[in-house]
């Protein structure tokens, strides 16, 4: 089934609760991102894809998993946008896409060792209720 880009964009924006349309593509988020060197898509590019109707590509992206949620992008954005919150929304959607995915506690040791701890804690909180 073809992805409804418009619906997907709306879902991401609703989860992220940040006004991505304010983005003027200055790139300060990417410049400040400490993990940007490892990202397949830099934060400004993620904002661009959302604003230009290419949200589905973001569901395949690895960048959200590199994000540390350090919030430097949000802190320094001159337009008051929070790319970090979009990254979190993308992580959520990517997980939901996988279907039933309760996180079994015993699987923690198999997770990549460089996985951000904050991410792990957030995921447990959300999926183990």
């Amino acid at each position: 089934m073809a992805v409804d880009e418009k619906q997907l964009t709306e879902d991401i924006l609703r989860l992220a609760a940040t006004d991505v349309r304010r983005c003027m593509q200055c790139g300060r988020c990417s410049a400040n991102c400490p993990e940007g060197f490892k990202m397949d898509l830099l934060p400004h590019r993620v904002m661009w894809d959302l604003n230009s109707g290419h949200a589905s590509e973001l569901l395949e992206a690895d960048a959200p998993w590199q994000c540390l949620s350090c919030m430097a992008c949000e802190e320094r954005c001159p337009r008051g946008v929070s790319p970090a919150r979009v990254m979190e929304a993308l992580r959520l959607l990517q997980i939901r896409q996988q279907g039933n995915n309760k996180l079994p506690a015993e699987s923690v040791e198999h997770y990549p060792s460089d996985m951000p701890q904050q991410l792990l804690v957030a995921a447990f909180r959300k999926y183990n209720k």
Partner: protein
Amino acid sequence: MQKIGVFVCWCGSNIAGTVDVAQVVEAVRQIPDVAYAIDYKYMCSEQGQELIRKAVADYKLDRIVVCSCSPRMHEATFRKCAEGVGINPYMVEIANIREQCSWVLKDKAEATAKAIKLAKAAIAKVRFNGALKPGESQVVKRALVIGGGIAGIQTALDIAEAGYKVDIVEKEPTIGGRMAQLDKIFPTLDCSACILTPKMVDAANHENITLYTYSEVESVSGFVGNFDVTIRKKARSVKADMCSGCGICTEKCPSRKTPSEFDMGLKNRGAIYIPFAQAIPKVPVIDREACIKFKTGKCGICSKLCPAGAIDYTQTDELITEKYGAIVLATGFKTISLDKFGEYGYGASKDVITSLELERLTNAAGPTEGHLVCPSTGKEPKKVIIVSCVGSRDVSGRGKSYCSKICCMYNAKHAMYIREKYPDVDVTVFYIDVRTPGKGFDEFQRRAVEEYGVHYVRGQVGKVVVDGDGRLTVFVSDLNSGRKLMLNPDLVVLATAVQPSPDARKLATMLTASIDNDDFYVEAHPKLRPVESPTAGIFLSGMCQGPKDIPETVSQAGAAAVKVVGLLAKDKLLTNPCTAQCDTSICSGCLACTHVCPYGAITGESKPVITKLGVRETRTVAVVNNALCQGCGACTVACPCGAMDLQGFTNQQILAEVDALC
């Protein structure tokens, strides 16, 4: 019986697109006394006005209601039209069905219903309109220009050339302003001082211009044509008429710890100083907070050395009062504080500088005599990074939401002249957008890239990290390639956002001139009256109205001067007849009105009066000076017994409007 004519304007589709004008006409025709009603596409056009004139003749109309745009736009037009056919201009009422109706509503039925209500209210009011006659007031043939930068100087020169007296008040010890600090200026790269200083001299020598430097406006009262202004001439501690400007005092002053404001803190100055060599007047001033004599009582070296005996430690501030017909605001700008932008390393490293500091570093008369060096080491840089939009286009609350407009061009200029003088220095400009509209401007920026080899990379710098050795690392993303970069320049230049001078707000309050959220003065109309403040008699020139470069500032300065001359050329001004009137028969003499009147137009006087009961007595009542009253209506609200009434907006008229609405 009254004969009211109602004219409903379409304003093209501005009104007719949302309001069913035919239905408005139909509705008002039902109202008693409405002798004629019609709609027309453009009521303000010659054909539209002809329609009004013809209807007045055919139907013997004595009152007119025009349902159209805001009275601010065309009330004068329709009043003049009425006067042309023998109706008193104050028998015209405007129902604003554009700004207050069609522009703010989407639903046609709702907008039509509101337009009908507004029309009915205006008709209810016009029934009580009376014929009013404007008075006359004199125009003082002298102008005041506040601010002695290029904007103020040019405005003053143009007014003076037209034959009128003009005074410039400048708070700094010299005129010249920001332009005096600049090195070369775009788009021709000519030397700023070479074109500014002759103008400064012209202003100083012009028989019609008086300079008040190191002075500030203390208070303003009065109104268009008749402003009373008090100017505080701060104590220079140097007698200007005796000083020869030799400068020996400034050289020998032992206090050397004060950063020079003119050199953006890159050099220290003495406590007694002349901001720069071409300063006008070339008379030093003692900074009393830095002066050893004022602080400890000992020293006095300047006084001992002065060959003219011009030093006067006992000088006090002088207050000058003068009358002016017009006032021009030309208060200029400053760059924003970078305190909230810690990530750029400004303050953490001396080698992170603002663009204005770079101007001083490259200026032949600057602290390094024009040698571009890193302030920390005194060595020439090998790699320079210029960061655009520092604090501009920033809605996060740290910076300014607007584009500072001048930076893209001066970035190109800086990059170009660094490359010209030091071809080995690598210069990169990091930008979000390059905005270079203007004659020859885009060509100028392209020349920087194509002929001077300046690198332009799209991407805003994220942060500048200063390590223990003072080495700079710039973190930035090249957005076109998607590469993340870490660069080690020797010098980082921040194109810092501009903001109005901090005095703008204070002066706006004094002059009742409007300012916007960023403290820029607001123009009377953004397109059609760009150099006038909404307050009559106040004009705007230069950066204080909005970011602009030198060519634009000079154009605006000339435009403001023409407006001032147009005002001063009149012998008399018609005053607004819509002034307050006191009904002495019911005035209790409490004089609450005198306390709220912002123009000092009301006084209490003992007068013989006849009360409502027919008793004759002499008591204190309020008396309005119609020449001073501006018709704001504050007194009518304050009056507890309803004795104060504003002509043209009487209590009876306003209540009739309210009754028609609900």
